[in-house]
């Protein structure tokens, strides 16, 4: 808190020794990581490692019981989720990040609720430009979309909200390869346009291909980190996933 006045140049998001518990059960211990401005950072690790929890604590859905979080030079450890969202962090959560009983256009217009700015119609047009499939379904209840379309909707809404930091949690989970490729394509274009991202992905290779840097979590701790090229050959990564190499 007392370093609010000394932002690190070029660093958008910083976590330092963050710990989180669920009802007394430790899910994250002393996690430190940074997302530099304009970079894509991948967060890898086996199931239950704490990736989702990391994103949840950043966006305020989970409370850190120790540690320190800073976004764009501001301490965000005590802010509520909607306040954090208004700083420009857009979090597409695990599972389906949509409102099933709202129609597609309403889902997209939710992107304008954060800052209170932005015109819903413009936002819808932008989203349709990004994923033309959505254009034909604007009046349809989002809950009746296919899984892939739902994720496209979630991703489209995230992009048109003009995030300073985009956090995606296993957006390709359970989708057919073709749809996954489409989503990744959109993510790639977003990255090229300079959106900073924190990416949680089960497809290690695809994630590392997109990322500028990666962290490996295991049992709530960071066990490895590095450039994609180094991580690909990292023993810690393979061991964390399949228990090999021990």
């Amino acid at each position: 808190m007392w370093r609010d006045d000394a932002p690190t140049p070029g660093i958008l998001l910083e976590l330092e020794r963050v710990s989180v518990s669920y009802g007394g059960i430790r899910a994250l211990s002393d996690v430190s990581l940074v997302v530099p401005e304009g970079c894509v950072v991948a967060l890898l690790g086996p199931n239950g490692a704490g990736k989702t929890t990391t994103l949840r604590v950043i966006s305020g859905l989970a409370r850190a019981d120790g540690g320190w979080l800073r976004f764009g030079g501001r301490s965000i450890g005590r802010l509520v989720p909607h306040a954090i969202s208004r700083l420009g962090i857009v979090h597409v959560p695990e599972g389906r990040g949509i409102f099933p009983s709202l129609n597609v256009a309403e889902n997209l217009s939710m992107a304008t609720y954060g800052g209170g700015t932005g015109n819903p119609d413009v936002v819808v047009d932008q989203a349709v430009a990004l994923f033309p499939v959505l254009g034909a379904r604007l009046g349809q209840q989002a809950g009746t979309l296919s899984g892939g379309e739902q994720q496209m909707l979630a991703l489209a809404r995230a992009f048109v909200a003009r995030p300073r930091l985009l956090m995606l949690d296993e957006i390709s989970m359970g989708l057919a390869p073709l749809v996954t490729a489409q989503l990744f394509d959109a993510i790639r274009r977003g990255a090229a346009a300079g959106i900073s991202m924190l990416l949680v992905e089960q497809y290690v290779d695809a994630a590392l291909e997109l990322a500028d840097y990666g962290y490996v979590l295991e049992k709530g701790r960071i066990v490895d980190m590095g450039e994609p090229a180094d991580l690909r050959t990292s023993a810690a990564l393979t061991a964390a996933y399949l228990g090999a190499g021990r």
Partner: protein
Amino acid sequence: MLPYIILGLFAGSIYALASLGIVLTYKTTGVFNFAYGGVAMFCAYVFWQLRDQWHLSQWLVIPILLVVVAPILGLILEAVFRPLATASAEVQIVVALGMLAFFINLVPIIFGGADHQLTSIFSQGHFHWGKHVVVTWNEAGTFLLTMAMAAGLYVLLRRTRLGTATRAVVDNRDLAELIGVNAGTVGQAAWIISTGFAALAGILLSTDEGLVTYVLPALVIYAFAPAVLGRLTSLPLAFVGAVALGLLQNILARYSTTGFPAKLEGSIPYLALFVLLVIYGRRLTEVRSSLRPLTGRASTGSPRWQFGGGLAAAVAAAIVLPQVLGVSIQHDVAEAMAYSVIALTLVVLTGWTGQISVAQMSFAGVGAFTAAHLAGTHGSLFPLAVVLGVAIAVPLSLLVGLPSLRLTGLFLALATLAFALLMDNLVFGSTSISGGLTGLNITAAKIGPLSLKTYTAQFYLCLFVLTIVGAGVFWLKRGPVGRRLQMVRDAPDAAATLGASLTLTKLAVFAAGAAVAAVGGSLLAVTQQTVDPSNFSFNQSLELLLVVVVGGRLLVAGALIAGGLYLVTLLPLPSVVDKYFPLLIAINVIFLANEPDGTLAVAIRQTRFCLAVLYRRPRPDVLLPVPSVLPPTGSRELSGQHG
């Protein structure tokens, strides 16, 4: 038939207003507003005060109500319930019931207790529809107004930014917050709108039924059944259900206006509520699952010491009190002890197994009226009457409990509420059972040769029973039975997967509670000497719950404190005390529902804490909170790796 249908549409549309308001706050904030009837009544009295007393134009008064009074009330309610968002269902329910009592007791203080007639807000008179049908402007206006309000709510939810945000919060609260929707603001809006609906419902109901303190909240409870029909989440179903309920009631009224069918008419909403709860059963799930159950913090000390201490106190009381107390006070103390016996059943039921019952006085009433009927004329039959009371109360509790104990938290509380109101209407409301408004007399009860005529005899009897029941409950708590109750309360799923039957456990507690309450009721009958149905009504059950919460619902001592609080209302104290006492209880409940050890335990804890601070004996766990955000320790090697 047509006139009845018109009457039905009229009544149903008022219920619909209330149902919509109740469902709206429940689905957006997870709070079931038991106080809805209280709020409606309060607003109706404000309306009466402004229009009929201060003679303001009603076209000024209604906007004032909707734009000033309702929003303020709504925001107050929101502020009370927001901190409880993560509290257990039990706490939310208790606070909401406290709120209900608060409004019921506040209104007579502010507006005087008298009943009034309220003229319709629509013009007097009527018009003819077809040849034979007469429709009053009041009926037509009410119906149209309600339709307009419902349509307005529909447009608001479907066509506005706030509406989209509200539906988003209902769909997925976390995601809505992630997108920047302030779910708190959405909740405030829901409370404001809901309170506005309550205000209108209150005014419209009062023009029909008169402005009567105790009638209005009960009428609003009619709206609970339609709300449950929509599983508390569907606005359209709630609306349709409410109109259907109004129709059903009035069509039934066509066939009979006297006797049992007429009573049934007033009971249909409660019956419908109970039946719907039972039919839905486990399919009813609460929109926001509650967190961990409460645990008390009172230092219990050595149980053996407590047990001994309690017995010693009882003996001392037996010897000393009759010497020092005047006879009439002795009698009041006896009555309070009978009340404590009933309160003990709530300690076990609500405190130890986490089930909220607002029907304990109904079971007590069974005992009381059985005693009055049997022993009223033949005093020596009193022991038999007690046994018979228990023998009636237990099957009755099984009848209620078997279908409804599968329900949890809120829905179980609603089921007991429906049961209590049904008992009020159908059983205690029937002259042959209750002896009408004057009640029944029981003045010559005897146990064998021992006459219970004298106050001293009554005192000893009540003390004896209270000691036995209190000691028994205390003893059970220490053993396997206590462990079983704690299991079921702390972690019901785990208890079941270890082999404990939840249904049997809850049913046993419920039935035992009914039995003991019936015994307590027959004691009350003996001490009160006149058994009056209003002493065993839903309102009394509510009051009992509140004083037990204040006394401490986890502690045997809590039931004794509850008896003490009841004693306050019996003693000849200045009338200000009588006036404000129930209100204070309600306020106390609203603020301390989170403290299962009760007010006294909290006060002791606070005093100890203050003393500790004064004498500078810092308690580390209090004075050193763990900071949620620690200063960094400056390891920076990570950031260096990026260009």
